[in-house]
């Protein structure tokens, strides 16, 4: 006899209960939601942005869009320098990049992969105007109207507009400068001229967008860049102007029939720097032109992406793997020192009467609660050559005044200071495990004839292993990510991978590499935490 139970308001009990449960879940989620959103925005998104930055490589594509396009069909394996169209695209890309002062940034980026490219880009950016002047002068001599920005504007502006061209150039300038390019530019490339003189129209549109959105000036009255005459001269080589009757038709025809110098882009670049006549810069650009790259991760493990595939860095640049190794090795040493020093103390605390143990526990908790900077400065004071320890050793005559021990700015300094700083994290979990070990087991072992040592080693120690495990993982995780203490007492020999990350963020500005190093470290820590959770359980983390 299945009769539905009814709640007080007449609905079936099952549904009523389900509704109550749902309401309870929603209420719990509503309480959690503000914090969850807060943590997601202020913490998880930043971490994700770091992971993204370690593979992101839009800069080559954004700075040299047309060069990358032209280079795609070039095969470096032939050993020959790319053809003229690549140099031509490079000239126009470089010109606008130099105007936006972004070419040096690209040079710095490519310099991570190939030493020397930074100065190549910087110097070429400076000499880029020479080619423009060679063509600008004859053109202006031919007709002084070319000097006037309004002449150019009249030729290229008008309806019907080539909206696609305007949109691509807006996007290009936005990508190049990282600034928005929306809004009125008071210019639209006319479709017929854009078809007739495609390179000039493209260069002019890019210039107009840049002028209007980045410098806030009206392109109608401004004189265009020196690259424009060059583009015009290039276009006029092949353009068929016979049917054209729009603005400036006579000017253009006169320019075409006059013997303007033919721009030779290959020669111009070779003049700027002979390195452009080698395949090295082109190869580097081609290899690193993809929008996403594993290059930073390869750099982080002392390898690099070369045109021939993945290879090791040159020997003198291989430092990071060694640094990872040293970080792990020193963290292990610190962990073992903490076990050695922490075990006796934890044992003593667990076996003393409660009142005495609590008194001694304060000596453990005091350093735990003291500011990290205070403890680090204390160690600097203690370990210096004119510091307290050396003074005491000299005073009791163990060390000669002239040969004071060097205990700071090396690995010894880092290990001592960090062992001190992390020791409470070892003692506290060990202590809480040892408190649960029954002393009667030890007594039983002894009454069965075990010596003190056997009783300890065979009975007590195995029961205390979970405490050692918990403390060790905790100390090790904290140690491999430490930054402040190694920075202050570590000198150059006693620093960790985290100091290298900080260096790349604040000094070398190689943020992609910093992000890749950070991602590797994060992965290592997460794996260790996963192990910690399996062994100890995150919920068992206790504070104080």
């Amino acid at each position, binding site marked *: 006899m299945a009769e539905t139970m009814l709640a007080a308001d007449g609905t079936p009990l099952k549904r009523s209960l389900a509704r109550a449960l749902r309401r309870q879940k929603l209420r719990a989620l509503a309480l959690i939601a503000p914090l*969850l959103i807060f943590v997601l925005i202020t913490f998880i998104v930043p971490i994700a942005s770091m992971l993204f930055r370690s593979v992101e490589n839009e800069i080559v594509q954004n700075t040299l869009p047309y060069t990358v396009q032209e280079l795609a069909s070039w095969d470096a394996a032939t050993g020959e320098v790319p053809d003229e169209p690549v140099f031509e695209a490079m000239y126009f890309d470089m010109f606008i990049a130099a105007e936006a002062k972004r070419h040096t940034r690209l040079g710095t980026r490519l310099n991570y992969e190939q030493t020397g490219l930074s100065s190549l880009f910087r110097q070429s950016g400076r000499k880029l105007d020479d080619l423009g002047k060679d063509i600008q002068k004859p053109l202006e001599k031919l007709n002084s109207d070319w000097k006037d920005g309004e002449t150019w504007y009249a030729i290229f502006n008008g309806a019907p507009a080539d909206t696609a061209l305007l949109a691509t150039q807006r996007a290009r300038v936005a990508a190049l400068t990282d600034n928005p390019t929306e809004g009125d530019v008071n210019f639209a490339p006319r479709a017929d001229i854009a078809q007739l003189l495609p390179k000039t129209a493209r260069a002019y549109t890019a210039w107009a967008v840049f002028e209007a959105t980045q410098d806030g000036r009206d392109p109608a009255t401004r004189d265009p860049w020196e690259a424009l005459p060059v583009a015009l001269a290039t276009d006029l080589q092949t353009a068929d102007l016979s049917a054209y009757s729009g603005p400036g038709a006579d000017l253009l025809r006169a320019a075409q029939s006059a013997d303007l110098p033919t721009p030779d882009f290959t020669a111009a670049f070779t003049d700027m720097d002979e390195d452009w006549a080698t395949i090295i810069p082109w190869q580097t650009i081609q290899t690193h032109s993809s929008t996403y790259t594993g290059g930073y991760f390869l750099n982080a493990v002392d390898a690099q992406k070369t045109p021939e595939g993945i290879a090791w860095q040159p020997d003198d640049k291989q430092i990071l793997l060694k640094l990872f190794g040293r970080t792990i090795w020193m963290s292990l040493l610190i962990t073992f020192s903490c076990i050695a020093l922490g075990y006796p103390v934890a044992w003593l605390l667990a076996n003393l009467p409660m009142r005495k143990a609590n008194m001694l526990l304060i000596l453990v908790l005091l350093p735990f609660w003291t500011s990290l900077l*205070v403890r680090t400065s204390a160690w*600097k004071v203690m370990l210096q050559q004119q510091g307290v320890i050396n003074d005491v050793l000299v005073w009791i005559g163990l060390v000669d005044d002239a040969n004071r021990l060097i205990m700071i700015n090396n690995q010894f300094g880092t290990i001592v200071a960090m062992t001190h700083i992390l020791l409470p994290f070892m003692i506290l979990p060990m202590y809480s495990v040892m408190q649960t070990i029954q002393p009667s087991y030890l007594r039983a072992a002894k009454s069965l004839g075990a010596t003190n040592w056997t009783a300890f080693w065979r009975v007590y120690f195995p029961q205390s292993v979970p405490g050692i495990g918990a403390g060790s993982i905790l100390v090790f995780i904290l140690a491999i990510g*430490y*930054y402040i203490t190694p920075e*202050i007492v570590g000198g150059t020999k006693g620093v960790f991978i985290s100091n290298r990350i900080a260096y790349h963020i604040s000094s070398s500005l190689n943020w992609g590499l910093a992000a890749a190093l950070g991602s590797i470290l994060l992965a290592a820590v997460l794996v260790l935490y996963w192990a910690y959770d399996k062994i100890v359980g995150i919920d068992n983390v206790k504070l104080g």
Partner: protein
Amino acid sequence: MGLPPYATLGQRIWYYSFRVICGLIFFFLVAPIVVVMPLSFNAQDFFTFTPEMLRLDPAGYSLKHYEDFFTNPQWQLALKNSLIIAPIATVISVSLGTLAAIGLSQSHVPFKGTIMAILISPMIVPLIISATGMFFFYSSLGNWMESVLGLNKGFVGYVKVILAHAVLGIPFVIITVTATLVGFDRSLTRAAANMGAGPVTTFFRIQMPLILPGVISGGLFAFITSFDEVVVVLFVGSASQKTLPWQMFIGLREQISPTILAVATILVVISIALLTTVELLRRRSERLRGMSPG
């Protein structure tokens, strides 16, 4: 566990040498902190004990480093910043954290494990990595706040550091408050509801007083986290938001001045006061929940 009267000579030797070893380890733990204190009263600009100090000659001691701390505009700016940033960050972490901890302690929370992992993650991720991620993200966030919201640069700087510190303090609040809530007797809230109290009244009159010790000690942890934090503030903040640890770090790395030791001593005294408070709160909380004080 005293020494039994029938202990052999070897056992006696081991017993006493073990005590000595432990004494040395305790000495190792406390000595650096204790050494700093008298050195901060040094009349000279040295980091070591001068002969006058060892003779306990009053001329060897002075308060000049403390005076420097309280008059030097750099240190005063750092102190002021620390006292602005840490309390605000603590209020944010405690208020959001307590609410979330109450939500998490309900019986039916979907995706509880994942949520907990996300909320605890700021404590797990090494500071240098948090700082790296925040460096990238907060600089664009700051630019956005300045250009789109039109806020002034100094204010945005504080907002960035406060947000960063607040999120670093959250795991501590979550852990301490959830721990207090484990022992919370739910029938008390039910009884209150039975007698006609609304959820808000129940929360403030019944639940809050009982979990208050956990909330306060979580808050203290969050406060200490922010007050002692240097890596993130170095990466996210600018010189006008420099805090006490920042100033100490710069001082230790570049030109080391004994004022650092005076500051260190003040901080040690503060941490002793906080340690005592937390310990008293823990005992009170255990007494309230009917456990034996331990």
